[in-house]
């Protein structure tokens, strides 16, 4: 039982969140709203299946294609600023939501990428995201969009360097963390 819980604690955590949200929805408008929420979630999931499939295949193929030594050399703990900048570029260019870039980041993690590199990848995806740019321009206008990009432009590499410097040594524990 204990090892079962240990292995599946994230599922339990998500389940608890679902129960809390379902309770809030229920107390507001009854079962109808709970049902509607679940249906919307599943609808989004079904709609995103083509994207999810591509994301998982990309992650799998990267792992199969790229040799561990290559990742370690270019994106590993000792790749320094070069690795962090490379990760920022990759993160900024990759399209899709968290169910796309986290499987890819996970593949890089298990292939030997360093912590600063991975944080830089995720942060660049979140802040530079080229694929999001058209939406931002169209919906928020050029002034806010340009100013936002200017202000946050240096953040992904800086955060990568900072995290590597502060916590870089934890990467082995993080890797084991996911393998379990």
């Amino acid at each position: 039982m204990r090892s079962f819980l240990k292995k599946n604690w994230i599922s339990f955590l998500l389940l608890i969140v679902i129960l809390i949200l379902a309770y809030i929805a229920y107390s507001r408008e009854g079962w109808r709203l709970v049902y509607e929420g679940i249906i919307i979630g599943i609808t989004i999931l079904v709609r995103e299946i083509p994207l999810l499939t591509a994301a998982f295949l990309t992650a799998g193929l990267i792992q199969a294609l790229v040799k561990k030594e290559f990742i370690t050399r270019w994106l590993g703990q000792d790749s320094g600023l070069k690795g962090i900048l490379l990760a920022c570029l990759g993160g900024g260019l990759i399209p899709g939501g968290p169910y796309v870039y986290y499987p890819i980041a996970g593949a890089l993690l298990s292939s030997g990428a360093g912590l600063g590199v991975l944080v830089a990848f995720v942060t660049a995806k979140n802040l530079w995201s080229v694929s999001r740019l058209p939406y931002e321009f169209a919906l928020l206008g050029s002034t806010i969009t340009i100013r936002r990009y200017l202000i946050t432009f240096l953040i992904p590499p800086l955060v990568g360097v900072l995290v590597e410097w502060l916590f870089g040594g934890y990467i082995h524990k993080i890797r084991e963390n996911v393998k379990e």
Partner: protein
Amino acid sequence: MNTSTIVLWIITLTLFLFSWKKGADTVKKGAQLAWSTTKKNGLLIILAFIIAGLVTVLSPEDLVTAWIGPNSGWRGIISAEFLGALLPGGPYVVFPIIAILVQAGAGLGPAIALITSWSTQSLLTISFELPFMGWRFTAIRWMIGLLIPLFAGFTAILLWG
């Protein structure tokens, strides 16, 4: 079929061609790895999407409008950071909400802090981050990330008032 899906499939097919050139074994290994990741995380992904759906019907947009007013200064930026973390959904869901707030008179600082916080601190994203990256990575990235929206918001106020 949206642009993201098309671009990602182009990437996938390019990788597939490279693997194919390397030999059928590489393709097979890639597909096997993809399948084992899917199997391992399938349930979690379904749960994460159910959370996304429930958050959507609970429409936290009402709360957003109530919290950030014009000229809210540093308080507005801190509220914006909290709200950004709570905003669910992709850019086509979140940007229209932020646009409404800007029209209603939200300052540039809070608006930029809000976009940044939704980008880097989104709590909904964590349900995807945990299974693939583990709790240690998630904790480190998220804690350090807390500084980013504050920095962005204050810099915006400093530069453009």
